[in-house]
């Protein structure tokens, strides 16, 4: 019986110009996924693959006419067409073993990714080149120099970028750039129910609060540990910048937070007869609140996340809040109301961090508690 022939693959020719442009685009964009794909078994750049650049589905691999005219693309293309680089690429596209990427191209790709803010891509490329940790060290060294020289903005940026190059060696099945898993981290942050208001994270002293906030928000524990050694004002400046960059919609959260604080404060006035601070337990307070307010308090977590979760538990609201506004999870507290816990907004009115983040324009949600227990605020 005659064997089937691979007609499509055998007659295929690949336009080397398209291949060079596709590689140059991946390098210019700092896109390691596309670069690796181009050398993969099913790449349209390989003659033994049935895939073709000319089809619509691979249009994303090729530069647009506008992109082709830009200087960074022209520089990348020029680098791709250098004889030793192009010779290596062609050899790898014809070989049947796992591809070996050209180090110069990968380094250029990583630098472009770093400039473009594609930190996961940069981290992967530097990791392949085995210089990721040293690049992080260099970033931190220059950031420390900037801080010491009084240039807080550059110091903050250096630390920010270094933390974004973090790698998660415990990722499954293979190490990967660290992911922002704030939903998980927020649950750990609020793992213990605060027996008193002073036990909650947002009420801690500025130093302790900042340390906890940095451990939560900075993905690389080594960078967070190094940052904790910087003076308070530099850590606050870093945190402010980090919060804004992680969460472009932070101002929307602030608005919702102000509203949640107003409602909490109003409810607090009605909670006043309860003796929360001296001898009363959370359950006593809970019964009292439940008796007086029916389902009112459930509006508060809904304000914080911007929607009501049907039969939502406190941790569901917390996970959603941490996903939408990671830093928002630093300014909430768990509170038992009736037979269920809810999330309430919470900040220290004199906290410099809360002030920098615009949260102090909200009324102090627990002012009534401070009045009840004197200056201690419990």
């Amino acid at each position: 019986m005659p064997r089937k022939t691979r007609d499509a693959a055998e007659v295929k020719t690949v336009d080397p110009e398209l291949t060079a442009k596709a590689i140059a685009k991946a390098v210019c964009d700092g896109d390691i996924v596309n670069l690796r794909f181009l050398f993969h078994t099913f790449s349209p750049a390989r003659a033994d693959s049935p895939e073709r650049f000319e089809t619509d589905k691979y249009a994303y691999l090729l530069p647009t006419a506008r992109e082709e005219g830009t200087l960074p693309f022209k520089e990348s293309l020029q680098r791709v067409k250098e004889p030793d680089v192009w010779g290596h690429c062609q050899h790898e596209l014809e070989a049947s073993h796992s591809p070996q990427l050209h180090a110069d191209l990968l380094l250029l790709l990583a630098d472009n990714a770093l400039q473009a803010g594609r930190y996961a891509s940069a981290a992967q490329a530097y990791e392949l080149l085995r210089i990721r940790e040293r690049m992080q060290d260099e970033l931190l060294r220059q950031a420390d120099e900037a801080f010491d020289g009084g240039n807080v903005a550059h110091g903050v940026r250096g630390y920010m970028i270094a933390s974004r190059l973090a790698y998660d060696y415990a990722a499954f099945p293979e190490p990967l750039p660290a992911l922002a898993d704030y939903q998980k981290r927020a649950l750990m942050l609020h793992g213990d129910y605060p027996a008193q208001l002073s036990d909650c994270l947002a009420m801690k002293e500025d130093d302790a609060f900042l340390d906890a906030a940095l451990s939560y928000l900075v993905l690389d524990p080594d960078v967070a540990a190094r940052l904790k050694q910087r003076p308070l004002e530099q850590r606050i400046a870093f945190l402010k910048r980090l919060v804004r960059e992680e969460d472009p919609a932070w101002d929307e959260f602030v608005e919702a937070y102000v509203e949640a604080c107003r409602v909490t404060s109003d409810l607090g006035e009605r909670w006043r007869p309860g003796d929360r601070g001296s001898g009363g337990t959370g359950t006593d307070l809970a019964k009292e609140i439940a008796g007086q307010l029916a389902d009112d308090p459930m509006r508060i977590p809904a304000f914080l996340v911007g929607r009501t979760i049907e039969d939502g538990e406190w941790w569901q609201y917390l996970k959603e809040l941490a996903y939408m506004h990671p830093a928002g999870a630093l300014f909430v507290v768990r509170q038992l109301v009736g037979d269920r816990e809810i999330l309430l907004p919470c900040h220290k009115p004199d906290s410099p961090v809360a002030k920098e983040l615009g949260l102090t324009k909200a009324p102090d949600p627990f002012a009534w508690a401070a009045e009840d227990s004197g200056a201690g605020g419990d």
Partner: protein
Amino acid sequence: MCDKGYVNYFEILGLDEHAKPGDVRKTYRRRMKELVGEIARVEITEERRAHYLLEMAKFNAALYVLRDTPIREAYWEARQEVIDLERQWRESEASDEAAAPKLRRTFDRKVRDFLSKYVEELMLDAGRDKECVDASHWDVAHERHAFRILRHYRHRLYKEILERLPLADVTPLQVDWDKRARVVRQVIAGSG
């Protein structure tokens, strides 16, 4: 020949390769008692918890592997095999370019298998062993935390091995660190 990264349970317990099972048990109990005492004395932070869990898992695995002759011999043989493969690959890299990629792939597969088995799997198995549980009080909560910590440890060891080997997925790279410093300066300044 460097054997760093290929977990050495004799070294973990501070024993030589000819230590008898009785010596292994005695040393394990002494080391575990010291560790448990240390844990009781210090305040447990997130970092310390990860460190102590890993130390405990390493001691447990050392006992589990070294007290039993067949397991111990299989472990030592597998360890020796990957060390020999690394040597062969390095030699072929220098002399026989054609055989090098195949040897590298074999070495890579074997080293991953070795670390998966003797770092993750056996460390978790050891945590369910009665003798280890009695001495270390290892329980399901420890195991739950240990999954991630052991995977992290395995990849760190793998990386430690890779770092001293020639690049394989990428062509050789000469890094000009002055140029790197300039790139970093541009990125921090937000220009480039």
